[in-house]
């Protein structure tokens, strides 16, 4: 998905960096020894690297779910001229952890898994460390440091899902565009590794918005 988005943005003339924060994808570390704070540090470092290496003066960030929350926190640290595209950001960490738990139980129930005693922090094939769990659990609506005057695109699965949050951003000076994504974002666990519908229209929309000066 991110590769498609990157190609669309490059096609629109934007330099793009896709990266994995600590403990995810190709990066070093593991999820049981990282934290949200590490991820914000990684993201800020990635943006600073891009500004330095491309000579651009305006940064842009795109994130989905928890990645969107990390982008929001990073934007607050970065300041300056920037654009933020957030797709269904996590605004309530407890609800998010409950969603992960319910996916974990659904996987155990529906799949051919002989349930053993789950390890602490085990969620559908991954182990989240104590610090990460605590930081996610502490994410609460209204407790977000607002990034200030930053142009923001909020993509939501349903109309008005993020209305209150958009108003808060607006009060802090952000120019907020809210859009219902043409394709619903479904990141739920599935065992079939031969299928993954790509949200083409939504990605195209994000790329167009990001490229607009």
């Amino acid at each position: 998905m991110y590769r498609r988005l990157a190609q669309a943005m490059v096609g629109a003339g934007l330099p793009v960096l896709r990266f994995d924060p600590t403990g995810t994808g190709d990066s070093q570390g593991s999820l049981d020894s990282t934290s949200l704070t590490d991820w914000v540090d990684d993201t800020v470092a990635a943006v600073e690297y891009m500004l330095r290496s491309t000579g651009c003066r305006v940064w842009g960030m795109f994130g989905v779910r928890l990645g969107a929350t990390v982008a929001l926190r990073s934007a607050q640290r970065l300041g300056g001229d920037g654009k933020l595209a957030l797709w269904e950001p996590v605004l309530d960490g407890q609800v998010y952890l409950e969603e992960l738990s319910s996916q974990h139980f659904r996987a155990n129930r529906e799949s051919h898994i002989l349930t053993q005693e789950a390890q602490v922090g085990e969620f559908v094939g991954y182990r989240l460390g104590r610090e990460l769990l605590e930081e996610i659990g502490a994410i609460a609506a209204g407790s977000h440091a607002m990034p200030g005057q930053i142009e923001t695109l909020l993509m939501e699965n349903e109309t008005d899902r993020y209305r209150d949050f958009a108003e808060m951003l607006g009060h802090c000076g952000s120019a907020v565009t809210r859009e219902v994504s043409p394709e619903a974002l479904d990141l739920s666990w599935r065992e079939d590794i031969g299928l993954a519908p790509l949200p083409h229209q939504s990605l195209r929309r994000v790329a167009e918005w990001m490229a607009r000066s």
Partner: protein
Amino acid sequence: MTREHVLCFGADETLTGIETPAARESGFAVLLLNSGIVHHVGIQRLHVTLARRLAKAGIITLRFDFSGIGDSSYRTDGTPFVSAAIEETRQAMDALAARGAKRFLLVGLCSGAVIAFRTALADERPVGVALINPIGHLHGSSCRVPVSHLRRIRRRHFVRLAMGSSFRWKIWRRIVRGGVDMSLVVRSVVATARDRPDRHDDESEHVLPPAVEEYRALVDRGVGVLQLHAEGDEGLDYMVWRCGGRLADLERLPGVETDIVAGANHTFTPLWAQERVVDRILDWAVGQAGGAIAG
């Protein structure tokens, strides 16, 4: 910390992978092949974990994306997936050979296992293949399993799980609670009892090459084969159905090892199952490399 780097290779360097160098040179390399459409980090980051553990043991790894998956570009020549993936795996071996690798082990889960098997039949460089939950690899060069075959395999799969697996109580609880159509259960049991695994009753089956002979072609060349099955996976039932009474002959071939991870699903979701898979592949790969990485 392991210093990994991006390797672009193939025609026009359109294929992309991550090379994890070994702590010391051994000339041994493992290729980790895509599972379905999961990119080169592997399902639940399995390939990353394996690559870093193998590197510590002295074995180079390349985890790369077939064209159209992850970071690799699409092909535009219309080559069918299996043929393209075999060709690209051979190109990955070329790229590693140019960097000093001499002997190759191919490791894959699901469709990755299919490509590992078919590549080893087509190219003499692999000295070992680890097939994790393979299905379709014994259906000729296209690896396409017709729906009629799948139906028979799935019936067999369901009956095995309900009657003789670690999951049988879980399944019967669902049946008793009405979560499963009872007439389907009865039909499956009856049909499976009547179905001789090696009975070939449709045209397409007559042209399938003998399964055991394809394995024999590998072991005669000295290729080690590890077959790792999750108990809850259909690949086990595929092997029984496809090989029939000759499955035992296949498993007795020198160099063929078969293991079943009891209580695990197709993608080894629980952490304990992932640890079992990583440990087993690591032991097998180190065993295959033998003296090349000793000391």
